C-alpha cells in the first residue's frame, strides 16, 4: 500500500517541476564540488549566496510571471525589454512620490496598446509587440536625447529593491506577493479560467459568450505592468535607470516560462513551474560564472539545457488524424 501511495505522490508532482527541481539540485551539487576542490569552501550552499541569487532572480521572476500570462493565451510579448526601460526611465525622470504610480501607468498604457493590436487588429502578437518595442526605444532616445532628465531612482524604488525585512530582501518579498496574486488570479478568478480557455481554443470561448478581446487586452496590460514593476525595481537595484536595461531579460523570461512546463502554444502551464524555471536559469548562469566559465561556454550550456529540459518533458504530440 505504502508503495502505491508513494508512486501516486510522485505522479502528482508534475514532470516540469520534478525535472527542473532535480536540475537545480544538480547545479548546486556540481558547483559545490567545484568550490570544494578549488577553494575548500561550500560558498554556494551558504544562505547569503542563496538569498542573493533569489534577489537577483526576483526581477526576472516578476517579468516571467507576466510573460507567462501572455504565453498561456498562445501569444508572446516581445516589448518587455523596453517596457521595463521606458517605465523605469520615466519614473526616474518624474521623481517624487508619483514616480512609481506613473511608471506603472506607463506599463499599463503599453500593455493596452499591445492588447488592442493583438485583440482588435488581430496582428500576430510576435510582430506587433516587436514593433512596439522598437517604437518605445525610439521614444526613449527622443526623451533623453534633447535634454537629460534625472535617471536617479526615487527613495521608494531604492527601498523596495535594496532593503530587507527580517533578512529577506524586499524584491524577493515583492516577487512572492506577485506570485501569490497571479496564482490566485489564474486559479480562482474567472479571468484566470478565461486565460487558460482562450489558450486552448479562442473561438470556443467566444461562442460561450465571453468577450475574449477584453481578456487579451487585460492579460497584455498585466504583463506590461509587471514588466514595468520589474524595471523600476531593477533601476533601484542598479541605482540608475538606463537604456537597454531590459534587454537581457526577454529571452531568459521566455525560457523560464517554457522550462517551467508552460506550453508555448498556450492553454496549459503552472505558475510554480515558472518560478522554478526562473530560479534554474539564474542559478545556472551564476554557478557557471562562479566556475569561471567564459561567456561562450555559458551560452552553449544555456542553450543545451533548454533543449534538454524540453526534450525531457515538453514534447508535442505526434500528428494523428
Amino acid at each position, binding site marked *: 500500500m505504502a508503495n502505491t501511495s508513494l508512486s501516486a505522490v510522485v505522479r502528482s508532482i508534475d514532470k516540469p517541476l520534478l525535472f527542473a527541481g532535480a536540475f537545480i539540485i544538480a547545479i548546486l551539487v556540481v558547483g559545490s564540488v567545484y568550490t570544494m576542490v578549488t577553494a575548500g569552501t561550500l560558498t554556494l550552499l551558504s544562505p547569503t549566496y542563496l538569498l542573493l541569487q533569489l534577489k537577483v532572480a526576483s526581477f526576472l521572476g516578476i517579468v516571467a510571471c507576466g510573460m507567462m500570462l501572455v504565453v498561456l493565451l498562445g501569444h508572446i510579448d516581445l516589448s518587455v525589454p523596453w517596457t521595463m526601460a521606458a517605465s523605469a526611465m520615466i519614473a526616474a525622470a518624474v521623481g517624487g512620490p508619483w514616480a512609481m504610480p506613473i511608471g506603472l501607468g506607463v506599463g499599463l498604457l503599453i500593455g493596452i496598446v499591445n492588447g488592442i493590436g493583438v485583440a482588435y487588429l*488581430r496582428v500576430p502578437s510576435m510582430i506587433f509587440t516587436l514593433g512596439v518595442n522598437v517604437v518605445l526605444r525610439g521614444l526613449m532616445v527622443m526623451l533623453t536625447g534633447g535634454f537629460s532628465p534625472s535617471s536617479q531612482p526615487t527613495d521608494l524604488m531604492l527601498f523596495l529593491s535594496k532593503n530587507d525585512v527580517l533578512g529577506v530582501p524586499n524584491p524577493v518579498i515583492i516577487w512572492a506577493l506577485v506570485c501569490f496574486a497571479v496564482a490566485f488570479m489564474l486559479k480562482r478568478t474567472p479571468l484566470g479560467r478565461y486565460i487558460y480557455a482562450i489558450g486552448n481554443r479562442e473561438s470556443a470561448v467566444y461562442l460561450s459568450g465571453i468577450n475574449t478581446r477584453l481578456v487579451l487586452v487585460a492579460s497584455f496590460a498585466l504583463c506590461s505592468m509587471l514588466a514595468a514593476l520589474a524595471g523600476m525595481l531593477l533601476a533601484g537595484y542598479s541605482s540608475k535607470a538606463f537604456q537597454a536595461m531590459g534587454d537581457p531579460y526577454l529571452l531568459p523570461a521566455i525560457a523560464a516560462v517554457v522550462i517551467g512546463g508552460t506550453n508555448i502554444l498556450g492553454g496549459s502551464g503552472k505558475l510554480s513551474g515558472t518560478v522554478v524555471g526562473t530560479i534554474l536559469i539564474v542559478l545556472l548562469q551564476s554557478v557557471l560564472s562562479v566556475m569561471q566559465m567564459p*561567456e561562450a561556454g555559458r551560452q552553449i550550456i*544555456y542553450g543545451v539545457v533548454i*533543449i534538454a529540459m*524540453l526534450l525531457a518533458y515538453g514534447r508535442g504530440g505526434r500528428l494523428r488524424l
Partner: protein
Amino acid sequence: MKDLKLRITQNIGPILALILFLILYVFYSSLHPRGFTSDLFVQNSNEALTLILLGMAQTLPVLLGGIDLSVGPLMTLVNSLASHLVSGSAVEIVAGMIACLVVGALGGLLNGLIVVYGRLQPIVVTLATGAVFSGIALFLRPTPGGTVDPDLNWVATNALAELPATYGWWPNGSPAWFQFIQGIPMPIIILVVIVLVVWIPFRRSETGRACYAVGSNEGAAYMSGVKIERAKLAAYTLGGLFAGLAGLYFAIQTGSGNADPIQAGTYTLNSIAAVVIGGTSLFGGAGGVIGTIFGVAVLRSITFCFRVVDSDSAIGFLANPLLQPMFEGLILLLAVSIGAAGIFRMKNRLSIFR
C-alpha cells in the same frame, strides 16, 4: 486577363512592398545631392544584401508556420568562421567559403531535426539553438577581428566592372557586350544568382510545394500524402544555408568577423520585420523569398531617406540617426495594421479566430 488578376491578388504583399520601395527610393535618390548614380546604387545594395539574405533565411521557417530566432546567431557564427577560413590562396578561399555554407546549412538542419524529431515548437528550439550558435561564435571570435581576402571584398562590394579588372581576365580591354552590364552592382548579381540557382528550383520542386502545403494546413497536407518531415527538414536546412550566405557576405563585406550577440539579435528581429513587410504570412503557407527581398528594400530605403533629409528644415528631426529605429518600428506597425484591415470586412466574426 483573369489569370493576371488572380496573380495580382495572390501576390498583393510583394507587389505593395515593391511599390513602396520604388516610391521611397525615387524620393531618396531625387533628394540625394548627386542624384541617382551607379556608385550610389552599388553602395545601397551593399548595405542591403546581408539583411536580404537573412530575411530569405527567415522566410522559409515562417512559410511553414514557424519562426527562426536563430538566424542572427547562425549568421554571426558563419561570419566568425569566415574570418578564419576565407583568406590565403584561391583554393583555400573557395574551400573556406564552401565550409562556411556547409556550416550554415548544418545549423539549419540541426534546428530542423530538433523541431521534427524532438517535436518541440520552433520558437523555443531556435531560441535555444540561437544561444548555442552565439556561444560557438564567441568561442571562435572572442573579440572582433580576423581577415578576409581583400580582393574578394573589393569584387563583392563593387560594380561588376571590378570583377574582370581585379582578376585580370581581359588585359586587352573588356568585350563590347560587357560594357552594357558592367555598372550593375555585384551584390545584385549575387542575389539574382542565388534566387535563380537556389530559390526558383526549390520553389518549383515537390519539396518546395510541400513546404507551402504544410504551412497552410499541416493536417490536410499529411492526409494528402505530403512528406511533411522531409519538407520541414529541407526548409530549415535551406534557411540555414541562406543564413550562412548572409554571414559569409557580411564577413566579405566587413573584412572581419564579429560575434556580437546583440548585433545578432537586432538582425534576427529585422529579418522578421522584413518577412512581414514582404507579404509572407506569419501563419504560414503564403508568401515567399521574393517578397522578403522587397521587404528589406523597403526597410533599408526608409533608413536611406532619413539620411538625405536636411537637418535644418522643419522635418529635420527625421535626420536624427538615433530616431531611425523608431520610424522603422512605426512603419512596421503601420504596415501590419493596414494588412490587418481585412478583419473589418469579415462577414463571419468567428473567422477572425485562427
